[in-house]
């Protein structure tokens, strides 16, 4: 080795053996690399992570390239939100000032199978993206139940595992679901609500709820916890026996209704009182809480999810305009992380295999049978 060109005047590290100094360099590099691998979750495959949740969805529902890993079956809708200005009292978000905001949305059925029957779950979902004039956005993914089944991402994951189809029967093992519910009493309010409220006969006559609570801050800087809902102008009617038998009716029904004219919902903001649970989606707030009707959501058009605008939208509920912020509900961050990975995977599949959506979009002419069964419309 050549001699150092700049002699070090201080003794110090020179006295330490060269292999020791080399080892120190190696340890420093390894520590940094190890910390990186740990942060990425590569050293702790048992830890609950976004990849683990999405992998489990894929294991439960099978591979459906190009589709969302959950709420895979759905359709796109478009319309607008007419704000009446009442929401300004709760949030300084521009969407609540009087005026119109364009909206792109999606109705869906829970589960990872894009061909599942509409009746496979008592729950339906309605996702919306409000595109504010200044470039901000408000995205929300709402469910037709005011309470969620589980409180934490860990419970959500356990529920997903319990619902995994038995390879022998192809259906979830009822004993496993029962054991999960018994072990997680937080699921009771959800189960009670579902038992007492049969699904609606249409996507148009159901209310959809924000699931989680959010923090609304007004122009004066006051912050309040809010859960919102969109409540339909179309009167609720329970699912009919014919619809139950039909299994796939939601998309065709919505399309038919939209041909008669736009469908309307009222955006209702429910304000928490001190002491109301803000970070637990399994618990409802009392009925007598302040309700603010912030305006009318109008849906004018529907299109298939294979070529509609909603296909390339990730309805991450933490994408919010200033004036609305996520609450401490642990589900919110998990939803954001898991949705992002689902979006990453399905857009990758779309990019590598553009034909993944062709089978469904091009089928109505060639395969009317399947189109009807899917309830899709071109």
């Amino acid at each position: 080795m050549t001699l150092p060109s700049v002699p070090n005047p201080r003794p110090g590290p020179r006295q330490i053996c060269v292999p020791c100094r080399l080892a120190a360099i190696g340890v420093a590099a390894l520590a940094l690399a190890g910390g990186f691998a740990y942060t990425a979750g590569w050293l702790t495959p048992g830890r609950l992570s976004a990849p683990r949740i999405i992998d489990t969805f894929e294991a439960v529902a099978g591979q459906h390239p190009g589709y969302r890993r959950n709420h895979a079956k759905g359709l796109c809708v478009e319309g607008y939100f007419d704000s009446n200005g009442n929401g300004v009292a709760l949030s300084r978000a521009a969407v609540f000032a009087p005026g119109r905001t364009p909206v792109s949305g999606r109705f869906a059925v829970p589960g990872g199978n894009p061909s599942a029957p509409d009746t496979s779950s008592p729950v339906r979902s309605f996702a919306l993206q409000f595109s504010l004039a200044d470039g901000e956005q408000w995205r929300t993914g709402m469910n037709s139940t005011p309470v969620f089944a589980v409180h934490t991402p860990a419970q959500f994951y356990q529920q997903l595992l319990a619902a995994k189809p038995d390879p022998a029967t192809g259906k979830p093992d009822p004993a496993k679901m029962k054991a999960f519910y018994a072990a997680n009493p937080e699921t009771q309010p959800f189960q009670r609500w579902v038992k007492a409220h049969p699904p609606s006969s249409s996507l148009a006559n159901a209310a959809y709820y924000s699931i989680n609570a959010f923090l609304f801050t007004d122009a004066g800087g006051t912050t309040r916890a809010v859960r919102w809902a969109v409540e339909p102008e179309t009167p609720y009617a329970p699912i009919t026996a014919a619809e139950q038998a039909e299994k796939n009716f939601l998309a065709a029904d919505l399309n038919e209704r939209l041909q008669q004219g736009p469908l309307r919902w009222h955006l209702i903001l429910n304000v928490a009182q001190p002491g109301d649970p803000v970070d637990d989606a399994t618990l409802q707030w009392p009925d007598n809480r302040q309700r603010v009707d912030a305006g009318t959501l109008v849906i004018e058009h529907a299109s298939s999810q294979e070529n509609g605008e909603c296909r390339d939208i990730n309805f991450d509920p933490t994408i919010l305009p200033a004036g609305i912020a996520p609450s401490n509900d642990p589900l919110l961050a998990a939803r954001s992380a898991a949705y992002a990975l689902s979006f990453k995977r399905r857009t990758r599949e779309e990019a590598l295999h553009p034909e993944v959506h062709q089978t469904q979009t091009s089928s109505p002419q060639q395969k009317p049978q399947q189109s009807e069964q899917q309830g899709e419309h071109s």
Partner: protein
Amino acid sequence: MTRARTHFSPLARLLHWTMAPLIIAMLFIGVGMVATVSRAHDTLLALHRPLGIALLLLVVLRLAVRITCGAPPLPENMSKVQRVAAKASHIVLYALMAAMPLIGWAMVSAAGYPVTLAGSLHLPPIAPHDATLFALLRALHTWLAFALFATVLLHLAAALLHALILRDGVWQSMTRGGR
């Protein structure tokens, strides 16, 4: 004036030591936020965007400083292989430092997300809302991040080698004042 400089300028050193911890933090934030489902996800994501844009501004300034002020020459007794490795790794570092925030910004744009920095403050999109473009940029952002982390590790190991073994003044050129 005529003598060759032996140290980086104070501004170059300030930029280097400001950016070094920020870049390492960004790599950890990025790899952590896509894995965790805890509330840290939201916090890390909210940090990642403004820090990325701050690093983009810093790297533009740093490139200008590097181009106008240059770098002190490497020790004369360094082998040709070492010189090439040093030069190449610095070019790769500069390229990745500039590319990562730009790809991140374009990727967020292509996903159709608002490019939020803080509150209602957001940047305009620099790419169209396009899922195929997003897929490409999203993959690039990950793989170039790994490449950047590997290059940073090499750079750190080489710097420590100069500091602890070779003692040829290269470490001092970035850590101390001087000509």
